[in-house]
C-alpha cells in the first residue's frame, strides 16, 4: 500500500517537473489580443465575414489581413471595441439585413400545380421550376428559414419573411435561395421593391397580382432618372441602396402594389 502511494506520487512529481519545464521552453507565444478580440465579437460563428467563425476572424484581424468592420452581426459597437483593442480605425459599416424580394403570397400569386414532393425550395425548383406561376418568385418551402442561424426567417402565407431585429446579415439565406431573390440591404433603408420578375408587364400580371410591371412611376415620383433612386433590369425596378428613396408617397402611388415601406416582418420576439 505504502509502496503504491510512493510510486504514484513519484511518477506524479516527475511528470509535473517535465510539464513545468516543457511549459517554459516549448510554449507557443500567442498574441493575447486574439483572445480579447474573440471576446469582443458576438460569438455567433455565422461565417458572414467570410472567415471560419469568430475566432478565425479575430486571428485575421490581429494579423492585419481583414478589415475591421466585416462583422455584420456585431455592427458598429463591435467594430469600435475592436478598434480600441487593436488601435486601428474601424471602417464605417452599416448594419445590413436580408430582404426577400417577393410579395406574391398564396392569395396574390397563382400556383400552377400541386407540389407534394420534398419540402425544400431547392428540390421544388428542380421540379419544373416549382409550383408557383411566377418562376422568379419565392416558393415558400423555407430553405432560407432552415439555414438561418438566428431563426430570423419564417414562412407566412407561402412567403419567406425576415425579422429585421433578429437578422445579423450573414448572407446564408442569400446563398441558398434557388431563385436568388434575397438581397442584403442597409437596415436603414425603408422603401423596397418586393418583386424579382424582370418579364414584361402583361406576362407578370398573368401570374401575380402584385408583380412589378416596370412602369417607371416610382422613378418619376421620386425625382426622375437624375435623382438615381432606382435602376431597372428589364421590366423590373430595383432600389438603388447607395442612394435609397425616402419619400413614402411613392409606395402609395405604385400601381402594381409591389412596393413596401418597411418590408421586414416584425415577429414580436
Amino acid at each position, binding site marked *: 500500500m505504502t509502496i503504491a502511494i510512493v510510486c504514484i506520487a513519484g511518477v506524479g512529481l516527475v511528470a509535473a517537473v517535465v510539464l513545468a519545464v516543457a511549459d517554459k521552453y516549448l510554449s507557443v507565444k500567442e498574441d493575447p489580443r486574439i483572445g480579447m478580440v474573440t471576446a469582443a465579437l458576438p460569438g455567433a460563428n455565422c461565417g458572414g465575414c467570410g472567415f471560419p467563425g469568430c475566432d478565425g476572424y479575430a486571428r485575421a484581424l490581429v494579423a492585419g489581413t481583414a478589415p475591421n468592420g466585416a462583422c455584420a452581426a456585431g455592427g458598429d459597437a463591435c467594430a469600435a471595441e475592436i478598434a480600441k483593442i487593436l488601435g486601428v480605425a474601424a471602417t464605417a459599416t452599416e448594419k445590413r439585413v436580408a430582404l426577400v424580394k417577393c410579395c406574391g403570397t398564396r392569395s396574390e400569386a397563382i400556383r*400552377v*400545380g*400541386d407540389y*407534394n*414532393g*420534398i419540402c*425544400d425550395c*431547392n*428540390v421544388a425548383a*428542380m*421540379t*419544373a*421550376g416549382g*409550383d408557383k*406561376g411566377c*418562376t422568379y418568385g419565392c416558393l415558400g418551402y423555407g430553405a432560407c428559414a432552415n439555414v438561418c442561424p438566428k431563426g430570423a426567417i419564417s414562412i407566412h402565407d407561402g412567403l419567406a419573411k425576415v425579422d429585421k431585429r433578429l437578422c445579423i446579415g450573414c448572407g446564408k439565406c442569400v446563398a441558398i435561395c434557388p431563385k436568388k431573390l434575397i438581397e442584403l440591404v442597409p437596415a436603414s433603408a425603408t422603401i423596397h421593391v418586393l418583386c424579382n420578375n424582370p418579364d414584361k408587364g402583361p406576362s407578370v400580371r398573368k401570374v401575380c397580382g402584385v408583380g412589378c410591371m416596370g412602369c417607371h412611376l416610382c422613378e418619376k415620383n421620386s425625382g426622375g432618372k437624375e435623382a438615381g433612386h432606382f435602376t431597372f433590369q428589364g421590366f423590373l425596378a430595383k432600389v438603388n441602396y447607395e442612394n435609397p428613396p425616402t419619400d413614402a408617397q411613392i409606395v402609395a402611388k405604385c400601381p402594381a402594389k409591389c412596393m413596401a415601406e418597411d418590408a421586414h416582418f416584425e415577429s414580436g420576439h
Partner: protein
Amino acid sequence: MKTVKSPFKFKGGVHPDYNKELAREQPIEKLPLPAELVISMSQHLGAPAKCLVKVGDFVKRGQVVGEKNGFISVCVRASADGKVKAIEKRLGPAGGKADAIILDTTAKPDGEEAAAPVTEPILPPLDWKTASREDLLKRVEDAGICGMGGAGFPTNVKLNPPPGKRCEYLILNGAECEPYLTADYRVMLENAPRIRLGVEIMRKILGGPAVRIAIEANKPEAIKAMEDAFADIDGNVEIVVLPVLYPQGSEKHQIYATVGRVVPEPPALPIDVGCVVENVGTVAAIADAVELGEPLLTRVTTVSGDAVTTPKNILAPCGTKYSDLVAFCGGEKVPPAKVVSGGTMMGFAVSTLEIATTKTTSGLLLLSPKRVTQYASQPCINCGRCVRACPMNLNAADIAKAVEADDIKAAEDAHVMSCIECGACSFSCPAYRPITQFCRRAKNSIRARMAAEKAKAAAAAKK
C-alpha cells in the same frame, strides 16, 4: 439474322401498369401544320444552340436557325416556313427556361405569291454506299439529329467514338418500357424499311459492328416487323426479345440484357464497353437525313391517357404546342388532374399546355383525377422494397435518409451518381417517399460542387 431470347436479366426492376392498349393500335397520323410553332434552342443534351435569326425574319423550312454551340450540342432547324414573331425565354418540358423562336407559320413575305410547296430536298441526298464515313457523320450532324429516346444526346458524337475505342455492338433500343408510350412501337411497325436502312448506314459509320435489336416481349408485332425487314441482311444481326420489365429501355440495362456487359460508374459511357445504343426513331431519322436529305424536323409523339378523347400517335413538327396536339386528339374528355410530358415513370409533370414539343418529346399524357393520387410522404419503415427494386444495385433507402439529413457526402459514398432516376424506388415505396427526388437533389448538389471545384482548379491553373 435470327431471333433470340435475352440471355441476361438485370437485378431489380418493377412492373407498372403499361396501359399501352390506349394508343397502340392507332396508326401514326400527320398533324396539319399548326399556326404557331415554338422552336426551342435547347432541344438536346448539352449546350443550347446559338440563335441565328432575329424578330421579323422570314425563315424557310429546314433553315438553320440555331447554330451548334460546343462539342456536345446540335444545330436547330426551322420545322416550317414562317415569320419570327418573337424570341423569348419559354418554359421547356423539363421545367427549365430556354430561348425559343416563336414562329408564325401563316405569315407570308410581302409581295410574294403563296409559294408552291417546296419539293426539292433540304440537303442534297447522299448515296450511303458510296459516300465516305466522314460525309455520313457530317450529314448526321447537319441534320441536327440527337437521341430521340428522351435524353437527347447528340448522335454524331455517339457515332464517332474517341480514338482507341471501338464499337463492337450497335444496339437498337425498341424496348419502350415507359407506360402509355407507343411512339417507338408504331415507328417499328410502319417504318421498318427506314430502320433497316438506318442500321446499314450506322453500321458503315461505326465500322461494321454486330447489330442487336432489342424489343420487349409484349410487342410481338414489332418483333415480326423487324424480322421481316431484316430477313435478308447479312452480317451479325440478332433480334433480342427482352423480358417485360421496367426499366428495360435504360441504356445500361439494355446493354446488359443483350450482350451481358456492365457499363462502369459515371463518367463511363457505353462506348467504354464497346456498345452504342440508339433509339429506333433516331435510326429512322438518320435514314431520312442521308437518303432523302430530310433533317430532323418532325417526330412521332404519343398523346395518351384517360383524360384525352382519342389517344393518338402523331407525327408533328418539333415545336408544336401541347395544346395543338391535344386539340388534334379531339380535346380533353375530362379535365386532366395531371399532365405529364414523357412517360409516367420518368416524365415531367407540366403546369400548362403552352409548352412545345422538342426533338425528344416521346409522349404527352393527360391523366384524369382517377389516375392521380394525392399522398403525403411518411418516414421510412426500412422494408427494403426500394433496394430490391433498384436496377442499379443502390441502397436507395439509405441514400434518401442521408439526403434528408442534408448529408450529401454520405449519399455520394453510397454511389448516388450511378442513379439513373428511373423511379423504380419511389414506385415501390409503401411510405410514399419521394426517393428519386432525393437522389436527384443529391446529384444536383454533387454536380454543382464538381463544377465549382473545376472552375476553381481552372482559375488556379491560370494563375
